C-alpha cells in the first residue's frame, strides 16, 4: 500500500501521511456516521419504535446533521477544570482508538503497517485510551466524571487480563504476533478459520473447536467490557453518572469521545474477526480468482473484512439493547471469577491439544 502510494505521489513523506490518513477518512469516519445511525435504528426497532425518520429517507442523514450541529456548538469549558488536560484528553482517547487501526490488515493489499508485534501493539495502544479517560475524568473536576473515569479504568484494566490470555492462546496456535500472518493462515475456506480449529492437522482440529468457541465467547465479552458498552457501561451509566467521564464535554470534543467509542467497537470487532474468523479471507473463495481478474481480489477481501467486522458491531448493539447494566461487584465477579479462570483453563488445554 505504502509503496504503491510512493509510486503514485512520488514523495515518500507525502505518501506516508496519505497512508496514515487514508483508513481514517476512507473507512472509519463513514463507518462512525453509519454506526451511530445503525445504533439508533437497531435500538428503535428492537423497542418497536422507528428511530430517526425525518432527515433524509428514513433518517439516513441524521448523523450528518448531528455532526454539523456538534461542530457549530460552542466549546464549553467549566471554569474550575484543569484546562490543558481537559483540552488534551479527547485527542488522546481519539488517538488511542484510531492508532489501533494501523496494524489491522483490511485486505492483503491495504494494511497500514504489517509489523511483527501487531497483536501486542493493538493491546498496548489501547492503554492510551485508558490514560485519556482518566485524564478527561480527572480534569473535569466533577464528581461524576471522576467516578466514571475511575470505574472505567478499573474495568478496562481488569478485562484486559482475559483478553490478553485469549490472545495468548491464539498466539500459541498461530505462532505469530503479526496480524497479517494470522489472517493468511486462515485462507481458503471457512473450515480453516480458527474458530473451526484452524489448519491444525488431524484430531487436534476437532478437539480445538469447543475450546475455540469458549475462547471466542470470552474475548467477545471482555472486549465488549473494554469498549465500555452495555451491559458493561457502568463508567458512563446514564442513570447514575450522567455521562461518566465525558459529562463536562460539549461540542466537538464530545463528538470525539463519541467517535472514539464507535471506532473502538469496530477495532475490537476486527480483532475478533482476525483471530477467529479468518480476517479478510472469504469463506467461499474469491470471484476474482475464478474469473481471473486479479485486482478484484483485494476489493473482495476488503468487503469480507468489513462485513465480518460490522456483523460483530451489530451483535454488540444487539447485546446493548438486550441486557441491563451490571452492578460493579457483578462486573468484577464476571471478570475475575469466571472469565479469567476459564481463559486460563482454555490456555492450558489448547497448549495440550497443540502438542498432539
Amino acid at each position, binding site marked *: 500500500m505504502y509503496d504503491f502510494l510512493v509510486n503514485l505521489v512520488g514523495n515518500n513523506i507525502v505518501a506516508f501521511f496519505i497512508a496514515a490518513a487514508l483508513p481514517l477518512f476512507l473507512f472509519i469516519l463513514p463507518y462512525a456516521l453509519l454506526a451511530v445511525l445503525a445504533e439508533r435504528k437497531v435500538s428503535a426497532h428492537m423497542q418497536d419504535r422507528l428511530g430517526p425518520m425525518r432527515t433524509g429517507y428514513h433518517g439516513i442523514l441524521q448523523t450528518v446533521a448531528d455532526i454539523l450541529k456538534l461542530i457549530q456548538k460552542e466549546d464549553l469549558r467549566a471554569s474550575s477544570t484543569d484546562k490543558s488536560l481537559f483540552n488534551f484528553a479527547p485527542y488522546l482517547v481519539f488517538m488511542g482508538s484510531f492508532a489501533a487501526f494501523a496494524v489491522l490488515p483490511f485486505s492483503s493489499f491495504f494494511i497500514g503497517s504489517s509489523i511483527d*508485534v501487531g497483536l501486542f501493539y493493538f493491546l498496548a495502544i489501547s492503554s492510551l485510551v485508558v490514560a485519556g479517560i482518566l485524564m478527561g475524568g480527572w480534569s473535569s473536576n466533577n*464528581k461524576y466524571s471522576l467516578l466514571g473515569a475511575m470505574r472505567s479504568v478499573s474495568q478496562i484494566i481488569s478485562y484486559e487480563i482475559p483478553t490478553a490470555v485469549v490472545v495468548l492462546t491464539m498466539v500459541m496456535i498461530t505462532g505469530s504476533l503479526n496480524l497479517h500472518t494470522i489472517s493468511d493462515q486462515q485462507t481458503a475456506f471457512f473450515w480453516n478459520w480458527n474458530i473451526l480449529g484452524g489448519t491444525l492437522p488431524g484430531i487436534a482440529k476437532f478437539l480445538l473447536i469447543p475450546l475455540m468457541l469458549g475462547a471466542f465467547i470470552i474475548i467477545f465479552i471482555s472486549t465488549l467490557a473494554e469498549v465500555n458498552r452495555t451491559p458493561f457501561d457502568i463508567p458512563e451509566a446514564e442513570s447514575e453518572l450522567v455521562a461518566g467521564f465525558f459529562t463536562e464535554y460539549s461540542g466537538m470534543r464530545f463528538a470525539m469521545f463519541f467517535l472514539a467509542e464507535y471506532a473502538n467497537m469496530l477495532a475490537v470487532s476486527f480483532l475478533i474477526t482476525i483471530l477467529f474468523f479468518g480476517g479478510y479471507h472469504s469463506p467461499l473463495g474469491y470471484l476474482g480468482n475464478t474469473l481471473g481478474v486479479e485486482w478484484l481480489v483485494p476489493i473482495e477481501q476488503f468487503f469480507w473484512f468489513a462485513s465480518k467486522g460490522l456483523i460483530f458491531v451489530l451483535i454488540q448493539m444487539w447485546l446493548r439493547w438486550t441486557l441491563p447494566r451490571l452492578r460493579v461487584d457483578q462486573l468484577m465477579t464476571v471478570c475475575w471469577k469466571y472469565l479469567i479462570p476459564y481463559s486460563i483453563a482454555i490456555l492450558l488445554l489448547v497448549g495440550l491439544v497443540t502438542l498432539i
Partner: protein
Amino acid sequence: MELYDIIFYLFAAITIGSAIVVVNSKNIVHAAFSLLLTFFGVSGIYVLLGADFIAVVQIMVYVGGILILLLFGVMLTNRITNVDIRSGSIQVIPAIIGLAIFTAILFWTMTSTNWKSEKFELPTTTAFQIGDILLSEYVLIFELLGILLLIALIGAASIARRDKE
C-alpha cells in the same frame, strides 16, 4: 532530512519536552500525565532503533500499567476533587550543576570513543529472538521472575482480603 530523521527528532522533542514538564510541573497530576508522553516518546525511539518488542512492552507496561497505577495512587490519596495537588522543585542550582557535569561526561565519552560504524541492516522483528533467548538461555531467570510475580500477586490478594479478620 529523511523521513526517519524527522520522526526521530519529533520523538526526541516529545521525550525531552515532556520530561522537563515532569520535573518542573507544580501539579503532580500534570507531571504524571507528562510522564505518559515521555514513555511514549521513548517507545517511539525504541521503534526507530528496531526494537519493536521493547517499544510495545514500554507502552503496555509503563503507560497501561504503571502510569495508571501511579495516577490512581495520586488521585486516591490526595483530596481527589481538588485540583490543587502541588509539588515543588527544590535545589534547582545543584541539580543544574550535576546535570551539566553528567552531560559533559556523556559528551566526552561520545566524542572520544572510537565508535565502530558499519552498514547494518536493522532487524525487522525482535519478538522471535527474544522469545527464543528467554526460553533457552535465560529460562531459569525467567521462571524465577515468574514465581516472584506470582508471589507478589498472591500477597496482594491476601492483603486485599484481610479486612474480614
